[in-house]
């Protein structure tokens, strides 16, 4: 046969042509607080705090950043944003201040033997005015469930630290603006 055996699309609103089994999922655990984690994790309670601290440290490095509090709160809700610390700003070589959403939960790393998993801070951007499902710093939706859950494989990739602030944008695109550039 010279054609693909199956095709699935995970986006493009492609409900009708998902012609194969569900997407592979990765088992993990999501908690809002350390206490919640301790109540659920029987075997290695130390992991609860260690993962929380690791997610907390990653939060400072990887949280989405906004140049104003209003911009951040428009996405995450009133009172759900905090200023980046002066130390972080100096470290990142940033001139101005920035704001980021508060951490609303965390996803355990190294869960169930997957050594490449890192603990991740989680955020809940607003959906129709109320906090929606948990999202990783990479903006991967990991659902609203607390406790053991399964997530898209891309959710468990280690979050990427923010780089220095962009000093400009728009240096590409002038020649192709408003016209298709493919051929």
């Amino acid at each position, binding site marked *: 046969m010279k*054609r693909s055996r199956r095709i699935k699309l995970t986006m*493009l609103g492609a409900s009708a*042509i998902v012609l194969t089994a569900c997407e592979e999922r990765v088992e993990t655990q999501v908690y809002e607080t350390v206490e919640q984690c301790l109540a659920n994790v029987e075997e290695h309670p130390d992991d609860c705090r260690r993962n929380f601290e690791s997610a907390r440290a990653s939060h400072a490095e990887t949280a989405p950043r906004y140049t104003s509090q209003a911009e951040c709160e428009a996405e995450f809700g009133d009172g759900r944003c905090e200023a980046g610390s002066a130390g972080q700003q100096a470290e990142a*070589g940033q001139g101005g201040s920035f704001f980021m959403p508060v951490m609303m939960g965390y996803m355990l790393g190294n869960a169930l033997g997957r050594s490449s998993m890192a603990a991740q801070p989680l955020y809940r951007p607003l959906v129709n005015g109320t906090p929606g499902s948990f999202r990783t710093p990479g903006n991967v939706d990991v659902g609203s469930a607390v406790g053991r859950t399964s997530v898209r494989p891309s959710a468990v990739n280690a979050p990427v630290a923010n780089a220095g602030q962009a000093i400009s944008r728009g240096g590409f695109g002038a020649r192709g603006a408003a016209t*298709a*550039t493919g051929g």
Partner: protein
Amino acid sequence: MERISLAPRPDWQDTAAEAGFTFHSENGPYWDEAAAYRFTLAQVEQIEEATESLESLCYQVVDRAVGDPAVLERLAIPDRFHDLVRRSWTDRERNLYGRFDFSYDGGTPPKLLEYNADTPTSLYEAAVFQWVWLEQMIGRGALPEGSDQFNSLHERLVEAWKGVGVVGDRLHFAGVMAAEEDRVTVAYLADCARQAGFATEEMDVAEIGVTTAGDFVDLRDRPIRTLFKLYPWEFMVREQYAASLLRRSARIVEPAWKMVLSNKGLLALLWEMFPGHPNLLPAFFDGTEHGLEQPYVRKPLLSREGANVEIVGMLDAEGGPYGAEGYVVQQFAPLPCFDGNYPVIGSWVVAGQPAGMGIREDTSPVTRNTSRFIPHFIQG
């Protein structure tokens, strides 16, 4: 090879809406399933073999070009990017995909009209919507069981992402998102990358930022380590952030060496190195003593969608903004005519391997942006 009239699926527009195929009627009818092309397996294999052999010739052209600044000069690649092109090749940066356009009549060897090596589109409709069409046509009894299609694009694209050498674990995808066709192509390739296990981020090329150091960042100031861009290299090297490309802090797909292949000068270089090859047409840089008899085709080195292409002695140039960098001339190979329609075979390569086919058809012998996409199937 035969053009067959078929009844369109009555619900195909709903299927298109569900499948995210939003541009099927953007500039007049584009997806057209009132007809389909039927191929025999032997004919498809002829196209497949031509594709495989041309891809290998193209690598030989790149190999020569990176070792010879005069060749890069002839292709109008700016001097300060010669080293970037060379290093992207010697560091073996892998490519993802490309599309050869052939004139083919079902019998004589396919002739290469051009190679869309850097920013080919019509990918999603070839890989997905054409495939769904065949599945449904068979399922509804409109085509016989066992009908096949030259189309393993989707499977190969997912696999290719795993081997392309993604740096970091997030892939950034940029294109001209205001152009629906480009946006869908970018979204589709990002989808394939997600199925290969990568986290992805889609953005407009104009949203790319640079830091004080000159590195590329996304809208959240995260570093861009691997960038797929549906945006021509020849534009990028002539725009404001061109100098940042020289830092090589981001791995870019397609790699910089595709600048050699996405240039119509490729056609002249191929003929120079492999004269008389059955899948090539005589082609020369314009201004040389080419000796071609009219009609012949004159194409800008850098041109898209048939813009500024002229058939000398037959058809005036299509309008368009290209041509400043020079031209090539190529012997005119008349497209076969089926019921007043001129089909061009788009033959895809993914990770260097033949991977499928999509056919564009026009009532004019020059294929343009407005040409229709006609599905195909294999029988016999």
